[in-house]
């Protein structure tokens, strides 16, 4: 196995073009486990830790530009006010040691359906900026996941930034595991309220071959909120609407039975999380006087 250590982004792109089978590594929380267990034997390992911009982030007007290697700990400590859903999701990643090393770029690169950041990215709205010597592409996150542990990257491309929409309303993240900490998701759910566009967006994790948005559930809820004038009158969402929303979220799942949980349980649990988190964000929205909210540690303008 050859070990590549590019000193700059340009060098990294050139190396990836020259060695398309090179596996990029940053925190190593996923790749090293696979190598140690001999699940993969890449010809080349490319250490991205010397590429400074991958560790940087910038909070812009409408989006946060997040470097692919920014650790979960940094997201929790520095970005919770603008990315509350992702910060909550980051909190559920492994142990403190893992959170100090692991990054959203790694989650996207591995594209495991159980990656904790995916539901939060889907709910918030995000684009993945990837680059190769051939040029730059921006891929909406919902198009990034193409199958179990497969993503839209071409073999010469690397993930550079993730552009995530800044929270303009309450966000929540919830994950079921059979232990109260340090656990891989049996299933997970992210939800974000976007008062600016008067929409609700969702993300479902570990309940289908890829992370996904529960589109039918979103459409139903958006219509129900609009028709009932909820965005303006700030009334409590009727239980029947919440139940229907939850059922549609369950319906969006296409889970499997495995050692961590049954398909039936996953479908049901996604529904429970959808109903509860909708309640939390909506109450937060109301409590904030239609648009100002404090839910999930976030304080949104």
């Amino acid at each position, binding site marked *: 196995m050859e070990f590549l250590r590019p000193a700059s982004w340009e060098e990294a792109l050139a190396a990836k073009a020259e060695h398309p089978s090179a596996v990029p590594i940053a925190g190593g929380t996923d790749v090293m486990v696979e190598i*140690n*267990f*001999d699940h993969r034997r890449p010809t080349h390992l490319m250490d991205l830790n010397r590429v400074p911009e991958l560790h940087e982030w910038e909070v812009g007007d409408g989006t946060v530009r997040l470097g692919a290697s920014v650790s979960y700990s940094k997201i929790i400590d520095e970005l919770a006010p603008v990315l509350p859903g992702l910060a*909550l999701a980051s*909190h*559920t990643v492994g142990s403190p040691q893992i959170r100090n090393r692991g990054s959203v770029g790694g989650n996207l690169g591995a594209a495991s359906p159980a990656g904790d950041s995916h539901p939060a990215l889907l709910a918030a709205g995000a684009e993945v900026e990837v680059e190769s010597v051939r040029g730059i592409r921006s891929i909406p996150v919902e198009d990034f996941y193409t199958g179990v542990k497969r993503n839209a990257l071409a073999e010469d491309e690397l993930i550079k930034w993730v552009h995530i929409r800044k929270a303009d309303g309450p966000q*929540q*993240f*919830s*994950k*079921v*595991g*059979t*232990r*109260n*900490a*340090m*656990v*891989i998701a*049996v299933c997970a759910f992210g939800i974000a309220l976007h008062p600016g566009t008067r929409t609700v967006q969702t993300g479902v994790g570990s309940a289908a071959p890829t992370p996904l948005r529960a589109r039918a559930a979103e459409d139903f809820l958006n219509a129900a909120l609009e028709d009932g004038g909820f965005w303006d009158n700030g009334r409590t969402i009727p239980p029947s609407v919440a139940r229907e929303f939850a059922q549609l979220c369950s319906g969006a799942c296409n889970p499997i039975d495995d*050692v*961590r*949980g*049954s398909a*039936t*349980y996953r479908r*049901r*649990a996604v529904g*429970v*999380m959808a109903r*509860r988190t909708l*309640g*939390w964000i909506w109450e937060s929205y109301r409590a904030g006087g239609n648009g100002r909210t404090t839910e999930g*540690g976030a304080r949104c303008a």
Partner: protein
Amino acid sequence: MAPTTRPTGTPTKLEQGAGAEAGVGDSPLRPDGTLKVTGEFAYSSDMWHEDMLWGCTLRSPHAHAEIVSIDIGEALAQAGVYAVLTYDDLPTEVKNYGLEIQDTPVLAHGRVRHHGEPVALVAADHPETARRAAAKIKVEYRELPVVHNEESALAADAPLLHEGRADHHSPHVPHPNIVHRQPIVRGDAKAAAERAEAIVTGEYEVGMQDQAFLGPESGLAVPAEDGGVDLYIATQWLHADLRQIAPVLGLPEEKVRMTLSGVGGAFGGREDLSMQIHACLLALVTGKPVKIVYNRFESFFGHVHRHPAKLWYEHGATRDGKLTHMRCRIVLDGGAYASSSPAVVGNAASLSVGPYVVDDVEIEALALYTNNPPCGAMRGFGAVQACFAYEAQMDKLAAELGMDPVELRQKNAMSQGTVMPTGQTVDSPAPVAELLRRVKAMPLPMEAQWENVGGEPDVRALPGGLSNTTHGEGVVRGVGYAVGIKNVGFSEGFDDYSTARVRLQVVGGEPVAMVHTAMAEVGQGGVTVHAQIARTELGVARVNIQPADTRVGSAGSTSASRQTYVTGGAVKYVCELVREQVLERGRRKFGTYHPAWATAELLLEGGKVVTDGGEVLASLADVLGDEPVEAEDEWRHRPTEPFDLRTGQGFGHVQYSFAAHRAVVEVDTELGLVKVVELACAQDVGKAMNPQAVVGQIQGGTTQGLGLAVMEEIVVDPGAKVRNPSFTDYLIPTILDTPTIPVDVLELADEHAPYGLRGAGEAPTLSSTPAVVAAIRAATGKALRRVPVRPEHIVEV
């Protein structure tokens, strides 16, 4: 020939200068505590030797298969490889080992019987080289049908795991795929059932729990000039290992010198051999030191697990809650090899009634041979499985009778003088009702601890924890109780002894005691307690604990809650022998100076010989002079006897140990997630030798029981393959899953035991599991007949 220099990372003596305030009943710090907490303690996986090789084991990917051929050519040809060994390379006619039945092949011969069985060994100059070479060994398998449960094991045409059995259990088992069967019949259950005004029956299931010790199997074998081998190893019983290793190597036992290296937990999982013989074989063949360290994945295949069990129970009672009879059948899955299955069967049968008075019983317990992973010793040893079932039954019976479940238990609780189903009279305190009273009397933890006035809920106090699944929605509290009974020490007529060597001498003008035993310190704190005993018995402040090795006689196993009792008893006894010699020497030297030498009861205290009236006669340093006093001897607890093979009658157990738990849980009834809020425990320990350490033992055992209740299980599929051999998917409790554990320690002396102590390590593991499950039942109303309870069982999707 290999260098005979001492490798690094092997143990040195532990010096303990804790002072006179560190005798029996005090809580001095562990001598290895700071090293362990700071990461400086050398575990067996940390050992290193100049010029050493790394061993690697090739294991079977199949649960049951014929080995058609093995081709080692390509592996042997790889650069850096020194040896590749298969069954054909075993040097003597002894090719199997085993704790009780020698049915486990050192390397597979023509057939593999379980997933992960060792097939071949490689030694190479780098662990990665060894692994790659192992992958180049070409083994051709022809898969065979698997036996994976009672039905398939006992079918008329079932493949036999071991054909032509000649072990001592084979004549009395009804089927050759049954390792051992123990019935117990006492009274007349059928007639008693006629008197019952309420009868409850139930079927229960216990999943396969793993010891999940953190230090993987590892050791270092160093070949010696004399053709022998020095083995540095993490184990639970050096001499039992030695007895199994030496014949396979074709060496006399004195040429296999074993030293205990740093043990990272055991819980029963190191009673059987793992890499011991493998490392020695490779070392002897290559003439170089060989180290083997399993990784976590391999560790799950490298040791036996707790027997999964299916249990059927029937209890009857009169309307006022007095038990009339009990019938049960316990089927344990022993997996492919016997390990300690026969003894686990004996325990499961003899303790199947629990700590209750029932005169009329019909009991049957058996262990199967299957192609599942081999199962053997784990903390609780057969009593855990039974306790889960009988305690579920007690709650069911209480519900049937409309009685309070604690009151029902207390009404039937055994006490000193109770006759066990085996006919054995319990002849020391058995405060079962009192333990229940104590846990029930403890104040209950505050309701809704997650609520923060005016703020976000503290999700750490809720089911799901930081995964943020509820802010209180769907959460229901439940409270449950359980109590259990565990035997202490080796039972059924086993000659269960320990050896100690104690030397008292003057070093730098000060008397110092040296204690040498072969006791395996696996974390239980024996090294601390031995020093406490020496201080109390010899009146010295400084004690050196020598590394455990085979230069001294056997200390028996660090299991069965027996080490403080038996090796502690041996240290006490030998200290008494030393004291007699010291006093004798004192009388010779100074007897003429003071009449009390001849007339008074003399003690050793504070480095001096004193009379029982407190008068100082001489300093120990003066009595000893330049010449040390040394003694070595064996010490035994009172004998036991085997259970009758048909009736199960017999004085089978040395001592019994009791603990009770009250569990308080919060259950998310919609998601099936559980937060154990508190697990209160009351336990009688006879004498708290080290009060702080015994509370630690009780809290650890309690937590291990919690793990079995809600998360810990090795999942084996119907093809007998292990599906979750990793800490990613075999979950053990984190600190966030571990509740507050208030412990109430009783000290009711057992007059048969040294200092009146009662073995303490296992009892808390028994009742913890059923208490947690009872609490979940109370919160949800679900029957929950199986552990670990999974979210699916609670929401029943």
